[in-house]
């Protein structure tokens, strides 16, 4: 647990990293910024925030792309050659990236627990494979909507298995950003979707049969004749031409404009913590985007990049909007500054992996699973949010705070670099003077600075 690095070397490189830096010359698409910049407070006579420091950038982008904070070694290496676009590319190509993103997508698709016979891990493994190969998201969506077979064998089937009671509601939220669930009981108050629209959409899954045997759900379709009013109708009024209703639905969904908008907005949300339209699964006329042009631009880029998740992540990570200390814009509605990028609580997985990185500990999959479950709990099993939100209960906080801290021989500076990827301030050194190292480590691991991606 002792670093090969000397404290002097650490201080030297960290000192050079403080303060804003000029952004390296771009071969980079600046369109996002040219759109966002029109709405920056600068226009109203204020200065927009500068780009964040290299060390903060590394922490931010590693949490977002590989799901953990940097090791002291990685931090040191990056500070010697702080090439941000190259770092983004390197992270996107790593196996850690596919693994991490598979967890993020699994949580958005089926939540955090195995309810109703869902095999989360089978789905996650399938997603990891797709992400490794950068399979276009429209293909993935089609596979998820039309999947058949056994839940324990065929990963994508589990999307449907998790949402068997009403798959079209989740499909609407996930792939179209439309909340059909409100139309379950009443016509949507703010939008044009009616109960009839919902019932017709629901029919797309009317052929699905799901026998359950020995812990596995078998999904298949029973194609048959249906009278005209029992046949599904897409929200646009389009009707299927064949008997393969789910395949038709997948085609309607992935070719629609809302699909591209929702996809672009979802990637933005992952990186910025807030959708341009937010909540991301509620596009409606009464919930306008913060920057309308930006939603359209992201949708257009999504199509141009053939729904490559990796390309979209690269595009946004390279923008100043992503890399500023903070990015606020002037809201069109209220004329007040609103944050485009917000503090993001770490997901249970990010939190665990970051603690393991900070403490330089080898951990087992079982340990990780226990930690994630304790943080999520069955309490959230009915959670329908797009991704994890901070909702810690007293009890989970207690078990977190009671976690034992290892004994370290590191200096205070080293502890700060390990945990917060930065040097302590003189005030912090003063506060820590004379305290046991384990207490300092405890205080940093449980600090909000550690727990949020900022």
């Amino acid at each position: 647990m002792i670093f090969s690095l000397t404290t002097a070397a650490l201080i030297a490189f960290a000192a050079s990293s403080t303060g804003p830096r000029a952004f390296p010359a771009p071969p980079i698409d600046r369109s996002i910024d040219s759109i966002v910049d029109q709405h920056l407070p600068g226009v109203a006579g204020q200065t927009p925030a500068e780009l964040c420091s290299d060390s903060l950038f590394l922490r931010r982008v590693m949490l977002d792309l590989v799901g953990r904070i940097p090791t002291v070694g990685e931090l040191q290496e990056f500070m010697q050659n702080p090439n941000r676009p190259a770092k983004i590319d390197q992270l996107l190509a790593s196996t850690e990236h596919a693994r991490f993103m598979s967890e993020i997508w699994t949580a958005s698709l089926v939540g955090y627990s195995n309810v109703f016979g869902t095999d989360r891990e089978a789905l996650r493994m399938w997603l990891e494979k797709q992400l490794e190969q950068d399979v276009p998201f429209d293909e993935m969506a089609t596979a998820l909507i039309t999947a058949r077979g056994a839940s324990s064998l065929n990963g994508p089937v589990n999307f449907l298995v998790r949402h068997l009671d009403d798959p079209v509601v989740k499909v609407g939220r996930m792939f179209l950003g439309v909340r059909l669930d409100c139309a379950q009981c009443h016509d949507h108050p703010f939008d044009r979707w009616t109960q009839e629209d919902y019932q017709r959409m629901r029919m797309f899954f009317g052929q699905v049969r799901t026998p359950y045997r020995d812990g596995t759900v078998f999904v298949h379709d029973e194609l048959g004749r249906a009278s005209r009013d029992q046949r599904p109708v897409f929200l646009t009024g389009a009707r299927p031409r064949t008997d393969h209703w789910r395949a038709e639905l997948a085609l309607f969904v992935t070719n629609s404009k809302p699909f591209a908008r929702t996809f672009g907005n979802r990637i933005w949300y992952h990186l910025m913590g807030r959708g341009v339209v937010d909540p991301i699964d509620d596009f409606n006329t009464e919930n306008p985007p913060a920057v309308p042009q930006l939603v359209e631009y992201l949708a257009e880029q999504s199509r141009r990049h053939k729904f490559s998740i990796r390309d979209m992540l690269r595009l946004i990570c390279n923008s100043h909007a992503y890399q500023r200390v903070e990015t606020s814009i002037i809201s069109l509605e209220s004329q007040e500054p609103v944050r485009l990028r917000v503090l993001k609580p770490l997901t249970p997985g990010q939190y665990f992996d970051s603690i393991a990185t900070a403490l330089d500990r080898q951990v087992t999959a079982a340990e990780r699973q226990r930690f994630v479950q304790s943080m999520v709990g069955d309490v959230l099993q009915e959670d329908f949010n797009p991704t994890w939100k901070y909702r810690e209960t007293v009890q989970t906080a207690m078990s977190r705070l009671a976690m034992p801290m290892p004994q370290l021989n590191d200096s205070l500076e080293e502890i700060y670099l390990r945990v917060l990827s930065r040097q302590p301030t003189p005030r912090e050194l003063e506060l820590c003077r004379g305290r046991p190292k384990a207490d300092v480590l405890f205080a940093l691991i449980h600090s909000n600075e550690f727990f949020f991606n900022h």
Partner: protein
Amino acid sequence: MNIPMLNRRQVLGGAIGGFFAYAARNRCDQLFASSIGDAAKAKRCIVLWMDGGPSQIDTFDPKPGKTTGGEFQSISTAADGVRISETLPHIAKQMDGLSVIRNLSSPIGDHQRAQYFLHTGFQFVQAFPRPALGSVISHTTTPTDFPNYVALGSRGFGPAYMGPEHAPFSIEDPAQARQLLVALRKRRGRLQLLNNLGAEFDQRHASTLVQQRQSMVSRIEALASTRFAEALDMERSSVADRQRYGETGFGQSCLLARRLLDLGVRFVEVQLGGWDTHANNFPALRQLCGQLDQPWGALMADLKSSGMLDDTVVVWMGEFGRTPRINAQRGRDHFPQATPVVIGGGPFQGGRAIGQTNALGTEISGDAVSVPDLFATIMSAFGIKPGQEFTTDFGSPTTATDDGKVIQGLL
């Protein structure tokens, strides 16, 4: 009163006053303020949860001598005319304080969905999470430094729009939970350092999330200073008590539940699992009822002698009943059509049998009551009207129960 649906642009365009009036009318705490107090008779609730779905015929709706009746005889109880299974002799003596509901019918025969239904009073709808009964009842009291929804032996169900402060505090192992609290007491210095070092970041990034997480530390410090940890310390209970409740897991949980109710915890659920008896129903039931009978009897006796039964609602239930038909493995399968519930304490009369099933137990004779009716009944004891409105965190108003009606026969 009809509340006009406001469109958001109108609100922003100047109808701000109207918007706030609308919001104020829908705030739960305000609604509670007007209805709690005079109507509320109960202060505490304990639910004994029979996980897996208990057989009604082998417990509280015996059919001795019938083809569906199985292996147990019925016995008379402290309640005139109410007979229950011979496997529950201690409870038989307490039936003057408890009433049996024999006509509760539910449409759900799947474990997970039925557990959700019998914990929330609403059928599971993915898009609309419902709070557990414990969270709703926790919400009817002013906040305390200790949790007001404790689940013993299970994880409990989520608080949904009631918020994380009404989440179940679930205890698998009381000794371990107590050690955790004691350990945190000793970490005071560390927690102080955490607050001091974090202050700068927290100020710079002032937001609800940061404040929430920061205040968690003070909430834990407050909890550690209450007598909650002492209540968890079973060594502090008398040997006589421990013997009366029986030296079993469920027995000790019932004793712990009583200690928590003594402390003032509003809602406690104690779980006894193993009721999913698809095979070998009768030896299993004899054993399960054996585990249930003595501790529950001791709990009832204690609540009665201390006078606490007057304001403590006691509920015994599981996710559904079991088939009258005995299958080839000598087991009984899921039968939500007759879901047994026993209820007493607080405003509820003991000694009654509500509704009945036919001679073989295959159907309810006469009127049936529903799961929402049961929830309306339990909530009414806490001053919550069945149609009372709550506002969800996603803005949609909803009622306390799914159109439930209070079961009058219990009052």
